[in-house]
């Protein structure tokens, strides 16, 4: 029988006015993959911060026992010395330094302050081999994709003699393929005897790799399930505290005439001028219709959407946009918004929100005309609008004066959605609308999408999660390498069909 490597007993952590954790208990066996699931705000990240010493001993109640020893960490260095390494959701790599420099940052092989680059490089090569990353150690971080960056983070963790590896939503920004590779790597580490804790929203991943699953809700441990008891329904039920009969809200599509039509849309890369990223896309969406765009990371979906939305991405953009059958000029964001097009970004923190301002100001940012007269803002009208949309999209905060930077991912997404709903668009393009948010909030977002479609708006959803596209769309386009390689009614679509379209498209592109 495996021995227990980590035990956290009765962990209670209070912030002013909020009990973030109350008597949480977690027990991890040596050599297993232990998943922790829970809604955003449930307390997972707080628990991991307690474990890794971000919140030092004394600021919380309870005991931590690691490898038979009671631990009182004063900071991250203490926990890392014992081999507890956490990889945060937001990667902590320096973009303009090389892979090798990043891996040994703060831990360089050096004598008297002079770095031995050969030793660093040799060790980096060995580590990269372990994580299956085939890159030159001298490559700059900024030049490799997010999936590979994640692997560099893991290699960095391995360089610290890790005993317990904690991954906080490692696949949140990875494509299906990269996610699979990462999970395989975790399983490989497990064979070598390493213990991992995996925090994830993606239940299919959890049920694939985890030996035990601990569910946390409202700062409390709900239950720990062994592998044989794990089913998605069971996890979902205990995560949200109620059973979700259906992951997607029911809707009866009432589809009207074509609202938006795009013809022969082509875009070139903004820096590599000779690279054509979007290669002649034709696409349309009807009133009341939800159209999904499926595809792998790098298929060009975001680039397509952003180039359409006021030429926010790319160069040498050609093609026609028709709204209600008439060609329109959408060459700036302002014009696109005026014509009734809205684009909800996949990266809400970088492109969607002013994180240092509160909800009220964020909600009205795209439609200041709606709350002002002759350039003067009507403060009360703005407050009423913000409160209205807070209620409509169910943003859970005490007031609209909360800074958006302090909100959970789900609430942030609802603020971005509110901003664009207040602009009252005819066509709404949603790019990864549920990325990094929990099951309960996802359902709420789906409900909003369904309601918008029922109001007669045309909706385009870009998503890397195929079940989600199948669950909410009426029609699905499949994109690969800048082209539409398939179009199917959602009722006839399946994950296999979509994948087949992508693979066939790849064959076509090669020939």
């Amino acid at each position, binding site marked *: 029988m495996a021995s227990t490597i980590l035990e956290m007993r009765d962990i209670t952590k209070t912030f002013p006015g909020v009990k973030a954790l109350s008597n949480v208990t977690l027990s991890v066996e040596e050599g297993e993959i232990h998943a922790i699931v829970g809604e955003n705000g449930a307390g997972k990240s707080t628990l991991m911060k307690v474990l890794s010493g971000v919140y030092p001993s004394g600021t919380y109640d309870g005991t931590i026992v690691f490898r038979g020893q009671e631990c009182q960490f004063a900071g991250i260095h203490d926990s890392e010395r014992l081999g507890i390494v956490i990889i945060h959701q937001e990667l902590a790599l320096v973009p303009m330094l090389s892979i090798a420099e990043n891996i040994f940052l703060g831990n360089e092989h050096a004598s008297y302050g002079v770095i031995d680059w050969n030793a660093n490089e040799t060790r980096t090569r060995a580590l990269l081999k372990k994580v299956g990353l085939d890159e030159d150690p001298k490559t700059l971080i900024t030049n490799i994709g997010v999936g590979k960056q994640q692997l560099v983070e893991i290699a960095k963790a391995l360089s610290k003699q890790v005993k317990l590896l904690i991954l906080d939503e490692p696949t949140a920004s990875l494509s299906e393929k990269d996610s699979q590779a990462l999970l395989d790597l975790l399983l490989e580490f497990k064979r070598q005897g390493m213990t991992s804790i995996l925090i994830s929203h993606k239940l299919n991943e959890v049920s694939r790799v985890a030996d035990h699953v601990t569910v946390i809700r409202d700062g409390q441990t709900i239950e720990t399930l062994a592998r044989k008891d794990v089913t998605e329904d069971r996890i979902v039920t205990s995560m949200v505290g109620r059973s979700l009969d259906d992951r997607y809200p029911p809707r009866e599509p009432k589809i009207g005439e074509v609202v938006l039509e795009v013809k022969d849309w082509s875009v070139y890369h903004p820096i590599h001028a000779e690279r054509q990223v979007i290669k002649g896309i034709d696409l349309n969406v009807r009133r009341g219709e939800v159209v999904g765009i499926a595809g792998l990371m790098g298929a060009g979906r975001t680039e397509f959407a952003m180039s359409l939305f006021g030429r926010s991405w790319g160069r040498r953009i050609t093609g026609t946009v028709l709204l209600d059958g008439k060609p329109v000029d959408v060459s700036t964001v302002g014009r696109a918004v005026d014509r009734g097009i809205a684009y909800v970004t996949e990266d809400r923190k970088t492109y969607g929100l002013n994180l240092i301002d509160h909800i009220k100001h964020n909600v009205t*940012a795209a439609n200041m005309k709606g709350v002002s007269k002759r350039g003067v803002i009507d403060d009360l009208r703005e407050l009423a609008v913000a409160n209205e949309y807070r209620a409509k999209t169910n943003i859970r905060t005490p007031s609209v004066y909360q800074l958006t930077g302090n909100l959970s991912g789900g609430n942030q997404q609802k603020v971005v959605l509110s901003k664009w709903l207040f602009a009252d668009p005819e066509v709404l393009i949603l790019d990864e609308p549920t990325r990094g948010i929990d099951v309960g909030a996802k359902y709420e977002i789906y409900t909003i999408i369904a309601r918008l479609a029922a109001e007669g708006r045309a909706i385009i959803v870009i998503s890397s999660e195929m079940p989600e596209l199948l669950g909410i769309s009426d029609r699905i386009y499949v994109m690969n390498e800048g082209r539409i390689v398939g179009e199917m009614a959602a009722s006839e679509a399946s994950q296999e069909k979509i994948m087949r379209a992508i693979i066939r498209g790849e064959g076509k592109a090669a020939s």
Partner: protein
Amino acid sequence: MTVESSPSPQTGVAQDTHEPRVAVSALVTNLREYGLVLALIIIMLFFQFTTDGTLFKPLNLSNLVQQNSFIIVMALGMLLVIVAGHIDLSVGSVAGFIGALGANMMVTWQLGLLSNPLVASIVCLLVGAAIGAAQGYWIAYHRIPSFIVTLGGMLIFRGLCQAMLGGGLSVGPLPVSFKELSSGFIPELLGVWTLVPPTVNAAGKTIFGSGVQLQMTSVILGLIGVAAYAWFGLSARRTRERHGYQAEPFALFVAKTLIVSLLTLFLVYQFAIYKGLPIVLVVMGLLIGLFVFVTKRMVIGRRVYALGGNPKAAQLSGIKTERLTLYVFINMGVLSALGGLIIAARLGQAVPAAGLGSELDVIAAVFIGGASAMGGVGQVIATVVGGFIMGVMNNGMSIMGVNVDWQQVVKGLVLLGAVVFDVYNKNKA
């Protein structure tokens, strides 16, 4: 990093717990502003004490305003520049250059109508706008860091200023009517009211405390200002309450209004028993009012904050970020020019060193006022208070006879202290 919001299964209850929280948060969010005003008052009382009461003497108050108004005028523009996420190092040089240009137009060059002080001043403001546009163009449309562009501008315009003055000479004297901008007082329309008639003692001197005469126009203007302030505050409260929103607690509102009004009336009284309100103070007051309105109530002001908070998100919300950046620098150029005119009017001539180093005082005022170097955060009133803190320290230490070298040390420490206080507060919250 995201601070996950507290799980709130009590969403339904949130409405009810709403009101006291708003009251507390109103106090907390304004704590910094109150703290800043408190700091200014403490500093004033300190110098009032160490200068044996010279600081609040009517003559000195007028001097204080006339010496520092150009800093505050330029700080208003700098606030927007910094909120937009930029910096402008050229303002001192631009002020100097404009002073030289104006002086030459009015005194050296015989330009007919263009030599008229008023016309020349307007031309100077337009040249300021053009300078702002020229610098803003590179920053906004070519994305050259503002630090570099305005560092270039700082060298260029200081050089042009000196070249224009024939290398180290000064140009003057400036027309008396132009000097009124800085050293004049508002014309007395209502007459002087003798509060306490002067009593002359045996030695032929007026006895202390007697001979108090009030410039009534200034008094009336002060009273109107205070009444308007209170009335606007009250009506804003009423409207909020009528629409069912919680305003700040009434006691807090009364206390705030009372303190501001009494302080204002006290200062107005001090001016009124001297020569009345300085013209430059009135100009500054109007500008402050305008910028409060623009930043708090106007769409363009809000957009500057959105731009500084997250430029990419602002652009994707349909804000024309390049044009907005250009406007911000044009505004800065105009205010730098006005600052330059005020300096020249006070000195009565244009000198090569006019405005030298003042960009640092201007930037310091904005940061003491709590603006963020990253952009997106900053308040007009706080900036003005920050400017006065710098001004009172300059003035107070000069009266005390503190060496100029040590004055700089103290000002540097105050700037650091203010920013450290801010960072500490943010981390605590």
